[in-house]
Protein backbone atom coordinates (compact mmCIF):
# COMPACT_ATOMS: atom_id res chain seq x y z
CA UNK A 1 0.00 0.00 0.00
CA UNK A 2 1.35 3.41 -0.95
CA UNK A 3 2.28 5.57 2.01
CA UNK A 4 0.88 9.04 2.38
CA UNK A 5 3.18 12.01 2.67
CA UNK A 6 1.71 15.34 3.72
CA UNK A 7 3.56 18.33 2.34
CA UNK A 8 2.89 21.42 4.39
CA UNK A 9 4.05 24.80 3.10
CA UNK A 10 3.91 27.73 5.50
CA UNK A 11 4.81 31.36 5.83
CA UNK A 12 7.92 30.34 7.77
CA UNK A 13 9.10 27.11 6.20
CA UNK A 14 7.96 23.64 5.14
CA UNK A 15 7.19 20.43 6.98
CA UNK A 16 6.74 16.85 5.81
CA UNK A 17 4.46 14.45 7.68
CA UNK A 18 5.03 10.74 7.00
CA UNK A 19 2.13 8.44 7.83
CA UNK A 20 2.04 5.00 9.33
CA UNK A 21 0.08 2.47 7.22
CA UNK A 22 -3.16 3.27 9.08
CA UNK A 23 -2.74 7.04 8.95
CA UNK A 24 -2.96 7.16 12.75
CA UNK A 25 0.55 8.24 13.62
CA UNK A 26 2.58 10.75 11.70
CA UNK A 27 6.31 11.34 11.79
CA UNK A 28 7.14 14.98 11.40
CA UNK A 29 10.14 16.05 9.37
CA UNK A 30 11.00 19.73 9.49
CA UNK A 31 11.30 22.57 9.39
CA UNK A 32 12.80 22.81 5.95
CA UNK A 33 13.82 26.31 4.83
CA UNK A 34 12.96 27.77 8.23
CA UNK A 35 12.09 31.42 7.77
CA UNK A 36 11.36 31.08 4.07
CA UNK A 37 7.90 31.87 2.79
CA UNK A 38 6.99 28.59 1.10
CA UNK A 39 3.93 28.93 -1.07
CA UNK A 40 3.75 25.41 -2.46
CA UNK A 41 5.52 22.10 -1.89
CA UNK A 42 4.66 19.38 -4.39
CA UNK A 43 5.76 15.78 -4.94
CA UNK A 44 6.15 14.52 -8.49
CA UNK A 45 3.57 11.72 -8.80
CA UNK A 46 5.50 10.31 -11.77
CA UNK A 47 8.45 9.21 -9.66
CA UNK A 48 7.14 9.55 -6.11
CA UNK A 49 10.36 11.11 -4.84
CA UNK A 50 11.08 14.47 -6.52
CA UNK A 51 9.93 17.43 -4.45
CA UNK A 52 9.69 21.00 -5.64
CA UNK A 53 9.33 23.91 -3.21
CA UNK A 54 8.44 27.45 -4.22
CA UNK A 55 10.19 29.73 -1.75
CA UNK A 56 11.28 33.26 -0.97
CA UNK A 57 11.98 35.22 2.18
CA UNK A 58 10.63 38.52 3.38
CA UNK A 59 13.70 40.21 1.93
CA UNK A 60 15.13 37.90 -0.70
CA UNK A 61 13.71 37.20 -4.11
CA UNK A 62 11.90 34.05 -5.22
CA UNK A 63 13.41 30.72 -6.07
CA UNK A 64 12.57 27.04 -6.44
CA UNK A 65 14.28 24.29 -4.45
CA UNK A 66 14.36 20.68 -5.62
CA UNK A 67 14.93 17.43 -3.80
CA UNK A 68 15.17 13.89 -5.13
CA UNK A 69 15.65 12.48 -1.65
CA UNK A 70 12.30 13.38 -0.10
CA UNK A 71 13.82 16.44 1.50
CA UNK A 72 17.08 15.06 2.89
CA UNK A 73 19.00 17.29 0.49
CA UNK A 74 17.88 20.25 -1.60
CA UNK A 75 19.27 21.92 -4.72
CA UNK A 76 18.30 25.36 -5.89
CA UNK A 77 16.98 25.83 -9.42
CA UNK A 78 19.68 27.18 -11.71
CA UNK A 79 17.13 29.46 -13.35
CA UNK A 80 13.99 30.06 -11.28
CA UNK A 81 10.84 31.47 -12.91
CA UNK A 82 11.56 35.00 -14.15
CA UNK A 83 9.82 37.17 -16.71
CA UNK A 84 11.51 38.12 -19.96
CA UNK A 85 13.60 41.25 -19.73
CA UNK A 86 11.68 44.30 -20.84
CA UNK A 87 11.66 48.04 -20.73
CA UNK A 88 10.08 50.48 -18.35
CA UNK A 89 7.41 48.85 -16.24
CA UNK A 90 8.48 45.30 -17.10
CA UNK A 91 7.39 42.83 -14.47
CA UNK A 92 9.42 40.86 -11.97
CA UNK A 93 8.28 37.68 -10.26
CA UNK A 94 7.57 38.42 -6.62
CA UNK A 95 6.95 34.79 -5.75
CA UNK A 96 6.19 31.49 -7.36
CA UNK A 97 2.78 30.59 -6.04
CA UNK A 98 1.66 27.36 -7.68
CA UNK A 99 3.43 24.24 -8.93
CA UNK A 100 1.86 21.58 -11.15
CA UNK A 101 3.64 18.46 -12.39
CA UNK A 102 3.28 17.89 -16.13
CA UNK A 103 1.54 14.88 -17.64
CA UNK A 104 2.70 11.30 -17.20
CA UNK A 105 3.81 11.24 -20.83
CA UNK A 106 6.28 14.10 -20.21
CA UNK A 107 8.53 13.10 -17.30
CA UNK A 108 10.40 16.04 -15.82
CA UNK A 109 7.95 18.63 -17.10
CA UNK A 110 6.42 21.08 -14.61
CA UNK A 111 4.34 24.23 -14.73
CA UNK A 112 4.58 27.14 -12.32
CA UNK A 113 2.21 30.04 -11.68
CA UNK A 114 3.53 33.23 -10.16
CA UNK A 115 2.62 36.53 -8.58
CA UNK A 116 2.18 38.79 -10.44
CA UNK A 117 0.40 36.50 -12.86
CA UNK A 118 2.78 34.50 -15.01
CA UNK A 119 2.95 30.98 -16.40
CA UNK A 120 6.26 29.13 -16.60
CA UNK A 121 7.38 25.71 -17.74
CA UNK A 122 10.30 23.47 -16.89
CA UNK A 123 11.31 20.39 -18.84
CA UNK A 124 14.18 19.40 -16.57
CA UNK A 125 12.43 18.63 -13.29
CA UNK A 126 12.46 22.23 -12.15
CA UNK A 127 16.15 23.03 -12.69
CA UNK A 128 15.44 25.74 -15.25
CA UNK A 129 12.21 27.56 -16.08
CA UNK A 130 11.04 29.32 -19.21
CA UNK A 131 8.25 31.91 -19.38
CA UNK A 132 5.26 31.14 -21.61
CA UNK A 133 5.19 34.26 -23.72
CA UNK A 134 1.73 33.37 -25.03
CA UNK A 135 0.45 34.22 -21.56
CA UNK A 136 2.99 36.51 -19.94
CA UNK A 137 3.44 38.87 -22.87
CA UNK A 138 0.04 38.67 -24.51
CA UNK A 139 -1.42 42.20 -24.49
CA UNK A 140 -5.00 41.02 -23.99
CA UNK A 141 -4.17 38.67 -21.14
CA UNK A 142 -1.96 41.37 -19.61
CA UNK A 143 -4.87 43.78 -19.70
CA UNK A 144 -7.07 41.22 -17.98
CA UNK A 145 -4.39 40.60 -15.34
CA UNK A 146 -4.24 44.28 -14.38
CA UNK A 147 -1.29 45.55 -12.40
CA UNK A 148 0.07 44.60 -9.01
CA UNK A 149 -1.80 47.65 -7.73
CA UNK A 150 -5.04 45.99 -8.87
CA UNK A 151 -4.34 42.78 -6.98
CA UNK A 152 -4.94 41.60 -3.44
CA UNK A 153 -2.55 42.69 -0.66
CA UNK A 154 -0.18 39.78 -1.15
CA UNK A 155 -0.27 40.09 -4.92
CA UNK A 156 -2.31 38.88 -7.89
CA UNK A 157 -1.71 35.23 -8.68
CA UNK A 158 -1.78 32.65 -11.46
CA UNK A 159 -2.92 29.33 -10.02
CA UNK A 160 -4.91 26.15 -10.64
CA UNK A 161 -2.75 25.00 -13.54
CA UNK A 162 -4.56 21.87 -14.68
CA UNK A 163 -3.30 19.34 -17.21
CA UNK A 164 -5.77 17.07 -18.96
CA UNK A 165 -4.41 13.59 -18.24
CA UNK A 166 -5.64 12.43 -21.68
CA UNK A 167 -4.03 15.23 -23.66
CA UNK A 168 -0.84 17.08 -22.66
CA UNK A 169 -1.74 19.93 -25.04
CA UNK A 170 -4.97 20.61 -23.16
CA UNK A 171 -4.37 22.88 -20.18
CA UNK A 172 -6.26 25.28 -17.97
CA UNK A 173 -5.20 27.97 -15.52
CA UNK A 174 -6.90 30.49 -13.28
CA UNK A 175 -5.94 34.02 -12.35
CA UNK A 176 -6.91 36.03 -9.30
CA UNK A 177 -7.87 38.22 -10.91
CA UNK A 178 -8.15 37.65 -14.59
CA UNK A 179 -10.45 34.69 -15.08
CA UNK A 180 -10.06 31.08 -16.12
CA UNK A 181 -8.45 30.10 -19.42
CA UNK A 182 -7.99 27.08 -21.63
CA UNK A 183 -5.60 25.99 -24.35
CA UNK A 184 -5.96 22.99 -26.62
CA UNK A 185 -2.76 23.58 -28.57
CA UNK A 186 -0.13 23.19 -25.88
CA UNK A 187 -0.22 26.80 -24.76
CA UNK A 188 0.10 28.64 -28.08
CA UNK A 189 -3.37 30.15 -27.82
CA UNK A 190 -5.69 30.63 -24.86
CA UNK A 191 -9.44 31.17 -24.58
CA UNK A 192 -11.36 32.40 -21.53
CA UNK A 193 -13.89 30.02 -19.99
CA UNK A 194 -16.18 32.36 -18.11
CA UNK A 195 -19.78 31.70 -19.10
CA UNK A 196 -22.04 31.30 -16.10
CA UNK A 197 -19.52 32.66 -13.62
CA UNK A 198 -20.70 35.65 -11.65
CA UNK A 199 -18.72 38.74 -10.73
CA UNK A 200 -19.05 41.37 -8.04
CA UNK A 201 -22.33 43.22 -8.50
CA UNK A 202 -22.22 46.05 -10.96
CA UNK A 203 -19.32 44.78 -13.04
CA UNK A 204 -19.39 43.22 -16.49
CA UNK A 205 -19.18 39.40 -16.36
CA UNK A 206 -18.02 39.36 -19.98
CA UNK A 207 -14.74 41.00 -18.97
CA UNK A 208 -12.20 38.51 -17.56
CA UNK A 209 -10.65 41.30 -15.50
CA UNK A 210 -13.50 41.05 -13.02
CA UNK A 211 -13.35 37.28 -12.56
CA UNK A 212 -11.65 35.79 -9.55
CA UNK A 213 -11.51 31.99 -9.52
CA UNK A 214 -9.94 31.04 -6.20
CA UNK A 215 -9.32 27.35 -6.79
CA UNK A 216 -10.23 25.09 -9.70
CA UNK A 217 -9.92 21.30 -9.63
CA UNK A 218 -10.17 18.72 -12.39
CA UNK A 219 -11.70 15.37 -11.47
CA UNK A 220 -9.15 12.56 -11.90
CA UNK A 221 -11.97 10.07 -12.49
CA UNK A 222 -13.62 12.26 -15.12
CA UNK A 223 -11.32 14.90 -16.64
CA UNK A 224 -14.30 16.47 -18.40
CA UNK A 225 -15.60 17.67 -15.05
CA UNK A 226 -14.17 20.67 -13.21
CA UNK A 227 -15.15 22.18 -9.89
CA UNK A 228 -14.39 25.70 -8.84
CA UNK A 229 -14.43 27.76 -5.66
CA UNK A 230 -14.73 31.31 -6.88
CA UNK A 231 -14.81 34.69 -5.17
CA UNK A 232 -18.47 34.65 -6.22
CA UNK A 233 -19.61 31.14 -5.42
CA UNK A 234 -19.02 27.46 -6.09
CA UNK A 235 -19.30 26.13 -9.65
CA UNK A 236 -19.17 22.98 -11.74
CA UNK A 237 -18.32 22.70 -15.41
CA UNK A 238 -18.97 19.61 -17.54
CA UNK A 239 -17.12 19.76 -20.81
CA UNK A 240 -17.60 20.17 -23.66
CA UNK A 241 -20.04 22.70 -22.23
CA UNK A 242 -18.56 26.14 -21.66
CA UNK A 243 -21.19 27.10 -19.09
CA UNK A 244 -20.30 26.99 -15.42
CA UNK A 245 -23.19 26.05 -13.12
CA UNK A 246 -23.35 27.74 -9.73
CA UNK A 247 -23.76 24.74 -7.43
CA UNK A 248 -23.13 26.84 -4.32
CA UNK A 249 -26.72 28.06 -4.41
CA UNK A 250 -27.66 24.86 -2.58
CA UNK A 251 -25.36 25.65 0.36
CA UNK A 252 -27.08 26.77 3.59
CA UNK A 253 -27.88 30.45 3.31
CA UNK A 254 -26.32 31.18 6.71
CA UNK A 255 -23.00 29.77 5.53
CA UNK A 256 -22.94 30.94 1.94
CA UNK A 257 -20.72 29.69 -0.84
CA UNK A 258 -17.64 31.85 -0.51
CA UNK A 259 -14.28 30.24 0.22
CA UNK A 260 -10.81 29.68 -1.11
CA UNK A 261 -10.21 25.97 -1.37
CA UNK A 262 -11.86 22.98 -3.04
CA UNK A 263 -11.05 19.28 -3.23
CA UNK A 264 -12.42 16.61 -5.54
CA UNK A 265 -12.72 12.91 -4.78
CA UNK A 266 -10.05 10.81 -6.54
CA UNK A 267 -12.54 8.19 -7.78
CA UNK A 268 -16.00 9.76 -7.65
CA UNK A 269 -16.54 12.82 -9.80
CA UNK A 270 -19.86 13.54 -8.06
CA UNK A 271 -18.07 14.15 -4.75
CA UNK A 272 -16.30 17.38 -3.85
CA UNK A 273 -15.55 19.36 -0.68
CA UNK A 274 -15.29 23.02 0.17
CA UNK A 275 -14.40 24.89 3.33
CA UNK A 276 -16.56 28.01 3.45
CA UNK A 277 -15.46 31.34 4.83
CA UNK A 278 -17.12 34.59 5.76
CA UNK A 279 -17.35 36.76 2.67
CA UNK A 280 -19.66 39.39 4.11
CA UNK A 281 -19.03 43.07 4.88
CA UNK A 282 -15.24 43.63 4.80
CA UNK A 283 -14.56 40.01 3.93
CA UNK A 284 -13.22 38.67 7.26
CA UNK A 285 -12.20 35.47 5.43
CA UNK A 286 -12.74 33.47 8.63
CA UNK A 287 -14.94 30.48 9.41
CA UNK A 288 -18.53 31.71 9.31
CA UNK A 289 -19.58 32.46 12.88
CA UNK A 290 -16.28 31.10 14.19
CA UNK A 291 -17.59 27.56 13.60
CA UNK A 292 -15.44 25.90 10.92
CA UNK A 293 -16.80 23.06 8.80
CA UNK A 294 -16.11 21.23 5.60
CA UNK A 295 -19.10 20.84 3.30
CA UNK A 296 -19.33 17.88 0.95
CA UNK A 297 -21.53 17.23 -2.02
CA UNK A 298 -21.96 13.64 -3.20
CA UNK A 299 -24.33 14.48 -6.03
CA UNK A 300 -22.25 16.95 -8.04
CA UNK A 301 -23.58 19.98 -6.20
CA UNK A 302 -27.33 19.41 -5.86
CA UNK A 303 -26.98 19.24 -2.07
CA UNK A 304 -24.30 19.69 0.57
CA UNK A 305 -23.68 18.10 3.95
CA UNK A 306 -21.85 19.70 6.85
CA UNK A 307 -18.83 17.74 8.14
CA UNK A 308 -17.67 19.18 11.45
CA UNK A 309 -17.36 16.26 13.88
CA UNK A 310 -14.20 16.83 15.86
CA UNK A 311 -13.74 20.42 14.71
CA UNK A 312 -14.09 23.28 17.21
CA UNK A 313 -17.73 24.22 17.91
CA UNK A 314 -17.09 27.90 18.56
CA UNK A 315 -14.53 30.70 18.60
CA UNK A 316 -12.37 29.23 15.83
CA UNK A 317 -11.65 32.05 13.42
CA UNK A 318 -9.61 30.28 10.82
CA UNK A 319 -9.02 30.77 7.21
CA UNK A 320 -8.01 27.87 4.97
CA UNK A 321 -6.22 29.14 1.91
CA UNK A 322 -6.78 27.92 -1.62
CA UNK A 323 -3.91 25.40 -1.65
CA UNK A 324 -4.38 24.30 1.94
CA UNK A 325 -6.86 21.42 1.57
CA UNK A 326 -6.02 18.13 -0.07
CA UNK A 327 -6.97 14.47 -0.15
CA UNK A 328 -5.16 11.18 -0.52
CA UNK A 329 -6.20 8.31 -2.78
CA UNK A 330 -6.82 5.72 -0.08
CA UNK A 331 -10.15 4.03 0.55
CA UNK A 332 -11.79 5.65 2.42
CA UNK A 333 -10.22 8.86 1.26
CA UNK A 334 -8.17 10.85 3.77
CA UNK A 335 -8.85 14.58 3.86
CA UNK A 336 -6.42 17.16 5.17
CA UNK A 337 -6.38 20.90 5.63
CA UNK A 338 -4.13 23.49 7.22
CA UNK A 339 -5.22 26.74 8.80
CA UNK A 340 -3.91 30.25 8.93
CA UNK A 341 -3.44 29.67 12.65
CA UNK A 342 -1.00 26.84 11.98
CA UNK A 343 -3.15 23.81 12.70
CA UNK A 344 -3.14 20.73 10.52
CA UNK A 345 -6.37 18.73 10.54
CA UNK A 346 -7.04 15.29 9.11
CA UNK A 347 -9.87 12.86 8.59
CA UNK A 348 -9.41 9.19 7.74
CA UNK A 349 -13.03 8.73 6.71
CA UNK A 350 -13.78 11.33 4.06
CA UNK A 351 -14.58 14.05 6.59
CA UNK A 352 -16.75 11.97 8.92
CA UNK A 353 -14.49 12.69 11.89
CA UNK A 354 -11.70 15.24 12.18
CA UNK A 355 -8.65 15.27 14.41
CA UNK A 356 -5.88 17.78 14.80
CA UNK A 357 -2.65 16.35 13.51
CA UNK A 358 -0.37 19.27 14.40
CA UNK A 359 -0.65 22.63 16.12
CA UNK A 360 1.53 25.69 16.44
CA UNK A 361 2.92 25.63 12.94
CA UNK A 362 3.32 28.96 11.17
CA UNK A 363 0.48 30.19 8.97
CA UNK A 364 -0.21 27.35 6.55
CA UNK A 365 -0.24 28.25 2.88
CA UNK A 366 -0.51 24.83 1.24
CA UNK A 367 -1.16 21.19 2.08
CA UNK A 368 -0.63 18.42 -0.44
CA UNK A 369 -1.30 14.76 0.27
CA UNK A 370 1.05 12.72 -1.90
CA UNK A 371 2.03 9.10 -2.29
CA UNK A 372 5.64 8.16 -1.76
CA UNK A 373 7.43 5.82 -4.11
Amino acid at each position, binding site marked *: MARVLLLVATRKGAWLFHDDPRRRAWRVDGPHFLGHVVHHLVLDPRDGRTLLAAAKTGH*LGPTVFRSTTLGRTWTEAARPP*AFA*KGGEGAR*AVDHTFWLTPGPASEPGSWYAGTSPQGLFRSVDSGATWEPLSSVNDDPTLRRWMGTVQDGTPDGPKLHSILVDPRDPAHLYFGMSGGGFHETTDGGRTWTPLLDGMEVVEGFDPADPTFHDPHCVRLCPSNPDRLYQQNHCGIYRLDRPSREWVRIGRSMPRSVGDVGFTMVVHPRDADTACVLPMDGTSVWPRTSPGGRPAVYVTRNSGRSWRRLDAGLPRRQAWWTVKRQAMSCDARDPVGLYFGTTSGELWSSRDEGGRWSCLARHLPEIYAVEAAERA
Partner: protein
Amino acid sequence: MARVRIPTPLRSYTGRAEVEAEGATLGALLSDLDRLYPGLRFRVVDEQERTRPHVRFFVNGEAVRDLGRPLSPDDVVFIVPALSGG
Protein backbone atom coordinates in the same frame (compact mmCIF):
# COMPACT_ATOMS: atom_id res chain seq x y z
CA MET B 1 38.90 42.68 -5.44
CA ALA B 2 36.23 44.44 -3.39
CA ARG B 3 35.30 43.10 0.01
CA VAL B 4 31.64 42.18 0.32
CA ARG B 5 29.86 41.77 3.62
CA ILE B 6 27.20 39.09 3.35
CA PRO B 7 24.07 39.24 5.53
CA THR B 8 22.92 36.10 7.31
CA PRO B 9 20.03 35.41 4.88
CA LEU B 10 22.58 34.95 2.07
CA ARG B 11 25.20 32.96 3.92
CA SER B 12 23.66 29.70 2.77
CA TYR B 13 25.25 30.67 -0.55
CA THR B 14 28.65 31.93 0.62
CA GLY B 15 29.12 30.06 3.88
CA ARG B 16 30.97 33.13 5.13
CA ALA B 17 30.22 36.60 6.41
CA GLU B 18 32.72 38.26 4.12
CA VAL B 19 33.84 37.36 0.63
CA GLU B 20 35.74 39.00 -2.19
CA ALA B 21 34.51 39.63 -5.71
CA GLU B 22 35.42 41.83 -8.60
CA GLY B 23 33.57 44.16 -10.91
CA ALA B 24 33.86 47.66 -12.33
CA THR B 25 30.33 48.43 -11.18
CA LEU B 26 28.03 47.25 -8.41
CA GLY B 27 26.04 45.26 -10.97
CA ALA B 28 29.18 43.59 -12.30
CA LEU B 29 30.30 42.77 -8.79
CA LEU B 30 26.95 41.08 -8.14
CA SER B 31 27.38 39.07 -11.33
CA ASP B 32 30.81 37.97 -10.16
CA LEU B 33 29.28 36.98 -6.83
CA ASP B 34 26.70 34.95 -8.74
CA ARG B 35 29.47 33.21 -10.67
CA LEU B 36 31.10 32.29 -7.38
CA TYR B 37 27.87 31.55 -5.54
CA PRO B 38 25.20 30.58 -8.09
CA GLY B 39 21.72 31.87 -7.37
CA LEU B 40 22.74 34.68 -5.04
CA ARG B 41 22.21 37.57 -7.46
CA PHE B 42 18.58 36.74 -8.28
CA ARG B 43 17.72 36.84 -4.61
CA VAL B 44 18.74 40.51 -4.41
CA VAL B 45 18.27 41.83 -7.98
CA ASP B 46 15.23 40.99 -10.09
CA GLU B 47 15.05 39.99 -13.75
CA GLN B 48 14.57 43.63 -14.77
CA GLU B 49 17.86 44.62 -13.10
CA ARG B 50 16.08 46.34 -10.24
CA THR B 51 17.24 45.99 -6.67
CA ARG B 52 14.62 43.96 -4.82
CA PRO B 53 12.28 46.05 -2.66
CA HIS B 54 13.67 45.15 0.75
CA VAL B 55 17.36 44.87 -0.11
CA ARG B 56 19.89 47.68 0.19
CA PHE B 57 23.48 48.09 -0.92
CA PHE B 58 26.09 50.26 0.76
CA VAL B 59 29.48 51.10 -0.75
CA ASN B 60 31.94 52.40 1.82
CA GLY B 61 29.00 53.29 4.01
CA GLU B 62 27.10 55.15 1.29
CA ALA B 63 23.65 53.87 0.33
CA VAL B 64 23.59 52.93 -3.37
CA ARG B 65 20.57 52.12 -5.54
CA ASP B 66 22.22 52.37 -8.93
CA LEU B 67 23.69 49.08 -10.07
CA GLY B 68 25.83 51.09 -12.49
CA ARG B 69 27.69 52.73 -9.59
CA PRO B 70 31.46 52.41 -10.35
CA LEU B 71 33.52 50.42 -7.88
CA SER B 72 37.19 50.48 -6.98
CA PRO B 73 39.10 47.37 -5.97
CA ASP B 74 39.47 48.57 -2.39
CA ASP B 75 35.78 49.35 -1.89
CA VAL B 76 33.79 47.66 0.83
CA VAL B 77 30.28 46.63 -0.18
CA PHE B 78 27.56 45.72 2.29
CA ILE B 79 24.46 43.82 1.21
CA VAL B 80 21.79 44.51 3.80
CA PRO B 81 18.22 43.32 4.20
CA ALA B 82 16.17 46.44 4.90
CA LEU B 83 15.52 47.01 8.59
CA SER B 84 11.92 47.10 9.59
CA GLY B 85 9.96 47.13 12.76
CA GLY B 86 7.19 45.01 14.14
